[in-house]
């Protein structure tokens, strides 16, 4: 049973959670101290875990979330209250147990040498991007972070590492740059940029096109409905280009082949 597989199922307890924007929370958890406490390997940025819904099995599907931080004692994530499972999370008291499986999926790859990581996030994509910025800072690398939100109320209040230059863009101009993340990228020298993006699909598509136009690499974090999270159910299909036969659809599994993909692999 204890094999080469990196993931496992375990229990954690909620340390605390705080509101970081309208409808958004950051939750911190600590691994339980018993034998099924800690993960086998430390989760990296881009990876995710799934939690058993509070009302399982009435709510039958585990819910995936990306890590926003992790150390040997526990992990954090940022979530938006969207439906029943996240509403339940928001109502849980500190100390409540959470049943997790992780770490799952692929990680953000390292940027090519001499390139500058440009991290672009919106909505629920901010968690994994924050974790990536933290990892880059730990490694001594500088980064540019561009965050998009509809208005000031949705701008996440977070502590970014000092080595990250953070630009905030709001659609209505109520905070930071007036416009989308693309406006946040204008007037930036991107000749050596390596793009990393996570957030709403249209935003990631725009960043992908920008990266293609400027001939720079781009990695995206894809969201798709998941049941197993380990490659068993074929539920989490992401349409990709089939290099051998462009006329037929081809799919990759977001849970094991992703969630991080080279944006040029995907059909947008």
């Amino acid at each position, binding site marked *: *049973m*204890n*094999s*080469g*597989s*990196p*993931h*496992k*199922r375990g229990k954690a307890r909620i340390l605390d959670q705080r509101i970081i924007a309208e409808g958004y929370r950051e939750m911190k958890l600590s691994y339980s101290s018993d034998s099924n406490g800690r993960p*086998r390997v430390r989760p990296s940025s881009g990876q995710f875990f799934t939690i*058993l819904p509070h009302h*399982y*099995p*009435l*709510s*039958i*599907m*585990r819910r995936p979330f990306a890590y926003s931080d992790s150390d040997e004692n526990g992990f954090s994530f940022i979530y938006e209250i969207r439906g029943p499972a996240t509403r339940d999370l928001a109502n849980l008291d500190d100390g409540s147990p959470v049943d997790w*499986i992780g770490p799952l999926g692929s990680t953000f790859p390292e940027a090519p040498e001499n390139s500058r990581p440009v991290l672009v996030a919106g909505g629920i994509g901010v968690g994994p991007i924050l974790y990536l910025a933290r990892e880059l800072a730990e490694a001594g690398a500088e980064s540019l972070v561009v965050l998009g939100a509809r208005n000031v109320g949705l701008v996440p209040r977070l502590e970014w590492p000092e080595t990250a230059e953070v630009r905030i863009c709001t659609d209505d101009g109520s905070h930071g740059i007036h416009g989308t993340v693309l406006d946040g990228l204008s007037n930036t020298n991107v000749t050596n940029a390596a793009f990393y993006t996570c957030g709403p699909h249209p935003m990631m598509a725009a960043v992908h096109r920008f990266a293609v136009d400027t001939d720079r690499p781009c990695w995206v974090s894809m969201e*798709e*409905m*998941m*049941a*197993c*999270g*380990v*490659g*068993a*159910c*074929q*539920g*989490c*299909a*992401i*349409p990709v280009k089939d290099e051998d036969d462009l006329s*037929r*659809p*081809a*799919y990759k599994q977001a849970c094991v082949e992703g969630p991080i993909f080279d944006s040029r692999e995907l059909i947008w």
Partner: protein
Amino acid sequence: MVDPDLTVAIAGKTLPNPVGVASGTFGFGEEYEGLTDTASLGAVYTKAVTPEPRAGNPPPRLAETPAGMINAIGLANPGLAAFLSEKVRILERLPCPAIVNVAGAVMADYLKVAEAMEEVDSVWGIELNVSCPNVDHGGMAFGTDPKVLESLTYAVRKVYSKPIIVKLSPNVTDIGEIARAAESAGADALSCINTLTGMKVDVLRRQPVIPRGTGGLSGPAIRPVGVAAVWKVSKAVGIPVIGLGGISSAEDAMEYLLAGASAIQVGTALFGEPDIPGRILGGIKIYMVQEGFSRIADLHGFF
């Protein structure tokens, strides 16, 4: 009291215990490594295998519904050639029996896969998927007409000598009649049920959540339908019945066994708790010991 005998006999072969994992929810047996112990399983039923690779349906393929979920995977699988070159060696290493789920669009597809399985020693038996609601051709059509099912089962019987399990659809008027057709054509066991046809509508988009409209409903929501189907089928035939549909606890499994099932499969509940089969088996054992049963077959016939 001695330990109860948990083995299940099908066509002269035995499964070590009655708790298997259902087709399409356990991949080809290796995906849950580190999350569950395959040595405690009665059998692994693989994802459907078709002669050619199938990419499957466009996303989204999944939706949650009350106490259940809808899937429209579309039999995505690597095809027979890749199964033989890549998946068989995984099955060889499994510490429990591997049963290959066979699907197709026309009868020749089933025969092609069944013929190939005849040559693979590590395959304990096959399960004919004549009940998939998520493909345009074949799939459920074979499982809804007793005549068609009879000729399909008969043809497969001629090319396959090991156990043949026919997986029945609940989307029929008289499941007993279908069950008898499969039995008379030489099936060694029947499994029921596959998913029920279901639909979820996104009211703001005014579109079905699943692009093709309908999908297969599974999970606790369908358990009463599955238990009733097993009860009817076990009264209609003499061959063993394998019950599934919404099992997520030992008590759920006991409902099926008491209704006439000789074995069970766990599907959707694996997504939530990958190690649940072992705990279900433990619960069945405790029930049998406490209630004084020594064999699974003794659980039948109370109603």
